[in-house]
């Protein structure tokens, strides 16, 4: 159109030339780092593996059996971390997951052992319980507009306390066993607690659950509209609402998925140990957040990946079991974990600043 004056076109050509400068190399390297938040965690996992391979390689860390040991630890936290990662990318926290693990495990055991329910019915009941608990957390957060950190901190104590209270009321104890006698235990065992033998070594089936769910969640996050909405509501809920994303539905769904993942872990543990303890799952809420952050997800939401959380959980398992293999007192594990968290947060923060910077 005649409106656009010649000089404007001229300027544009100049701008384009100016953009072809030496900064591009630096930018594209940074871009790769920003678009792949899991790279740091993958590198970290490799470093940790080499570290323990050198220190504890001949004590069994490198053996298949050793690998199975740490993968099992990684898997149980990893299943939780997948859902927590999605929730945190969506901009929310759930501190009640540890309590939900305890409650679900106890619920499974009590319903089957004390009330004689078949395990199929028990699992449906636990699933319904998880959906209710997740909805409770999500509804309270969305309704009050308060930080989910505070709301779910309250749930943490409510669910843990109720689990202890109800269990003592019904059984008079805080540990309940005998799940292996329940109807349907065999198939539940196959599904949740059996070993898959690879080269003569049994790998717990929970590792398959972990990797399978991770693949599903990673696909959903990266490749579906719902995944795009998760990034949107976590990045800027108001902006997402303006473009037509159903913000409340997305967040509520994420809270429910998180509760379901916690219940799955509770069930896996109950079936594996043929019973439950009211204190199971303690501190898992923090471990889950830690491995998600190590995996490159931002505490502020809107940025992160499931793959990163998988590597985070892998690091967690390797460090926890690796320390045992080296023969060092396992007390040092927490120091290691806290240190890694600190490094991860600093790196994430730096990456975010780079991503937000005008160029």
């Amino acid at each position, binding site marked *: *159109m005649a*409106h*656009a004056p010649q000089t*404007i076109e001229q*300027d*544009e050509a100049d*701008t*384009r030339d100016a953009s072809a400068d030496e900064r591009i190399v630096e*930018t594209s390297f940074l*871009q790769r780092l*920003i*678009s792949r938040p899991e790279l740091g965690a993958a590198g970290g996992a490799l470093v940790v593996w080499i570290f323990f391979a050198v220190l504890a390689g001949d004590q069994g860390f490198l053996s298949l059996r050793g690998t199975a040991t740490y993968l099992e630890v990684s898997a149980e936290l990893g299943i939780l971390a997948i859902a927590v990662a999605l929730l945190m990318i969506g901009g929310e926290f759930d501190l009640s997951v540890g309590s939900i693990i305890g409650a679900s495990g106890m619920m499974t055991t009590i319903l089957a052992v004390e009330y004689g329910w078949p395990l199929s019915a028990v699992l449906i009941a636990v699933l319904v319980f998880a959906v209710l608990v997740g909805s409770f957390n999500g509804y309270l957060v969305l309704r009050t507009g308060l930080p989910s950190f505070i709301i779910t901190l309250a749930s943490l104590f409510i669910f843990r306390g109720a689990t202890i209270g109800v269990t003592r009321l019904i059984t008079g104890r805080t540990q309940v066993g005998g799940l292996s006698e329940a109807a349907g235990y065999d198939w539940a065992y196959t599904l949740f607690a059996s070993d898959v033998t690879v080269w003569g070594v049994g790998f717990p089936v929970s590792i398959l659950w972990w990797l399978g769910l991770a693949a599903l969640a990673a*696909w959903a996050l990266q*490749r*579906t*509209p719902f*995944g*795009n*909405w998760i*990034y*949107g509501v976590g*990045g*800027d809920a108001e*902006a*997402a609402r*303006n*473009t*037509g*994303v159903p913000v409340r539905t997305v967040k509520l769904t994420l809270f429910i998925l998180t509760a379901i993942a916690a219940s799955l872990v509770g069930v896996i543990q109950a079936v594996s140990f043929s019973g439950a303890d009211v204190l199971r799952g303690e501190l898992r809420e923090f471990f889950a957040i830690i491995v998600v952050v190590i995996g490159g997800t*931002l505490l502020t939401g*809107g*940025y992160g990946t499931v793959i990163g959380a998988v590597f985070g959980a892998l690091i967690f398992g390797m460090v926890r079991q690796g320390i045992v293999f080296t023969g060092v007192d396992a007390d040092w594990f927490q120091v290691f974990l806290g240190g890694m968290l600190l490094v991860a947060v600093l790196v994430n923060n730096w990456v*975010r600043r780079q*991503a*937000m*910077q*005008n*160029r």
Partner: protein
Amino acid sequence: MADTVPLIEVDTISKYFGRVIALKDISTAVRAGEVLCLLGDNGAGKSTLIKCLAGVHPPDEGRIRVEGEAVQFDSPREALERGIATVYQDLAMIPLMSIARNFFLGAEPTVGWGPFRQFDMKRASRIAREELGKLGIDIRDATQPVGTLSGGERQSVAIARAIYFGAKVLILDEPTSALGVKEVGVVLRYIARARAQGVGIVFITHNVHHAYPIGDRFTILDRGQSYGTFAKDEVSREEVLKMMAGGEDLEALTHEIEEFERSDRRAADKP
């Protein structure tokens, strides 16, 4: 061009907030392929007027016509459905998400069926690149985060998105006010490109130096009232500025400043 039906026409609208008269008898119109600048100082009523157009506040008196048809918008969504898109200053862009993801947030193209339906990232990236290309923005990579773009480029992504999703009228709320000098040029150029595509543009600003180079017509507001709408050849930059500032006030100010300068000079001359 003046004899075509306006895309959107405001006919003597007024808006009151309690006893405050926010707008009184304002009339103006924007046609396809035209930039209407809405000028006024802070508090002149610019924001209220665009909120009436965008469906945020329905006007208390008067009519809004879209392509000749009287309409009553009760929500921004209704305005959007009639092709009136508003790009607000805060942009509705999420800095940590990629350009393509931002571009299609809430309206993602999909491939596949049933549970395997997935976000068609390739198509999203291609369309985002093409649509930005139409505005003359050459992005190397639609997967780069919006946060890596400059403020002006972010504005343009928002503009391109609105056009792609069927906007016939684009309302730009102070798109240049938070930008540096160079960036203002960038945004003005994209507005020119959008106009060339036949979009009607309502450009809100309090800076006549941003409005004058790009505007085809100017509506000047002052304390809720309109000085009228002028075509570019009917009015000079200085006249626009004078009307915006409430005429004589500015003249008085100019005199005062000259007075200061004179006294300064006198002080400097005396050793």
